[in-house]
């Protein structure tokens, strides 16, 4: 059914009027919606943090190949790098030349007396290839990939090094995975409880207006028109819920920023900055969930009033 603009405006106005007129009920519905969205957002944020820190930890597991023999030409090493890159599971291969190795050396947090002897004129530091993998669980596969790529036998024994505490890292990764799953389960569980409450309060707001629905039908309003204002209200619950939730989350995260160090330690971002980094994704997610939930619940709850 196509509507004139006048009719659409009328429906929006009716929806807004109803929202205001039953403000205690609609406030309740909005707050419950806020609670639902806050819960979902917190778990969303939580799973972001778990994912990002796990990623950060996992990305630190890389393989480094050292070239102690300075006689080998840079070009040969670069060629080897290209061959390694063409192997599966390899994300990136970075060549670190002597000059860069020196820079890294000078930045290391170690005793200056140890650092000093090494300089531009005396640089025993080896060149290296830093091999990043796509899947840190497959370190062994990467090592054998490197062996396959090394057709010219440039790599000496014991020159391929990778993180020795791999098991410890893997354990951490599997714990974060467990945490992520528990978080997901909890968010679904609490999400269902919250949705159930939203459903109930919206049903109450609608049954408070069953007279109005009845009258609209008596005077010949189409079902679409009767439904219209409730759809508008459903959208309002979602939008207002999103606004309140976002303000709440931003405020709390800025205040709590100094006390939560996990993001700062692993990701070099303060907690507050981390939340702001994801704020648009969170807002989008809230709007999507909030509006769909509000509209779907409203339309479903009033369906029984629309039966002839």
């Amino acid at each position, binding site marked *: *059914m*196509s*509507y*004139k603009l*006048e*009719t659409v405006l*009328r429906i929006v106005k009716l929806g807004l009027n109803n929202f205001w*007129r039953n403000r205690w009920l609609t406030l309740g519905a909005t707050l419950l919606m806020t609670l639902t969205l806050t819960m979902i957002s917190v778990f969303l944020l939580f799973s972001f943090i778990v994912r990002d820190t796990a990623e950060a930890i996992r990305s630190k597991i890389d393989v480094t190949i050292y070239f102690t023999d300075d006689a080998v030409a840079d070009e040969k090493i670069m060629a080897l790098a290209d061959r390694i890159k063409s192997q599966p599971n390899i994300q990136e291969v970075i060549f670190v030349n002597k000059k860069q190795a020196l820079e890294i050396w000078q930045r290391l947090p170690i005793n200056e007396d140890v650092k000093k002897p090494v300089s531009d004129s005396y640089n025993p530091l080896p060149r290296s290839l830093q091999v990043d993998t796509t899947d840190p669980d497959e370190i062994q596969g990467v090592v054998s990939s490197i062996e396959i790529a090394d057709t010219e036998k440039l790599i000496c024994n014991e020159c391929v090094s990778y993180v020795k505490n791999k098991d410890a890292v893997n354990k951490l990764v599997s714990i974060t995975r467990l945490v992520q799953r528990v978080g997901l389960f909890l968010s679904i569980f609490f999400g269902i409880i919250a949705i159930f409450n939203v459903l109930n309060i919206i049903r109450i707001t609608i049954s408070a207006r069953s*007279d*109005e629905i*009845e*009258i*609209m*039908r*008596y*005077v*010949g*309003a*189409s*079902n679409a*028109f*009767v439904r219209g204002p409730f759809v508008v209200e459903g959208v309002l619950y979602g939008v207002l819920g999103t606004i309140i939730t976002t303000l709440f989350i931003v405020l709390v995260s800025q205040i709590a920023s100094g006390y939560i160090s996990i993001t700062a330690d692993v990701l070099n971002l303060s907690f507050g900055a981390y939340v702001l980094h994801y704020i648009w994704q969170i807002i989008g997610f809230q709007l999507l969930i909030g509006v769909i939930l509000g509209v779907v619940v409203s339309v479903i709850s009033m369906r029984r009033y629309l039966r*002839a």
Partner: protein
Amino acid sequence: MTTDIQKADQEILRIGAPAKSERKINTSSKPLIEFKKVTMQYPGRLAVREVDLEIREGEFVCLVGQSGVGKTTLIKLLTIQETPTTGEVYVAGRNLADLRSKEVPLYRRKIGVVFQDFKLLPQKTVWENVAFAMEVCGFSNAEIAKRTEKVLDLVNLGRRAKNYPHELSGGERQRVAIARALVHSPKILIADEPTGNLDPVNTWEIIELLYRIHQKGTTIILATHNRQVVDRIQKRVVLMKSGKIVSDQHGGKYVI
């Protein structure tokens, strides 16, 4: 409104031009409303049994009988709040059971309904209550303003337009409800116990108003158990008893 809807609108109800005030009821033409062997079975209660009833255009029919004999059920069948268990209800030659769900609202605009409890919206003024009926049907603001003023004048409530229902007397409230029912210029006006909550003075006001509307050519169905009203109107009286029509007389009185 799309032209599709307008077309459907015309198809649903070709009820013909309103009767002139002095027009005689044409008994040879097809009836406007026709109940054919209508039975309505509610769970555990047979509300209407095998009712046959014909109502012609321009008639004033008093549907009488005690509470619970099936008057309201007949009205609900007419407004498509219920569909008969068996039998058919025809309005303007069309079986109501054949109306598609999208056509039902369009059909309802052609019949006005008034109830004992008025069913006004308490938060809306008299004007808004009447205008609301047109708003929900997609009329333009200009049309609504014009038409609302007209029907409020018709029921003599022009000066109460800005009042809220709780500021009005019972009779005035019922007149607002009648104005709302008339806003679509219905061919049929159904009044279900419209005077049930009113004192005698207000009752006569309402009955007179219904009579005036009838004089302008609207077919009226008045369900009531008020003996004085029926006796005074001296129109067709259809008496129901436990779901059946037991007598049907023109110029009749309320006899049990």
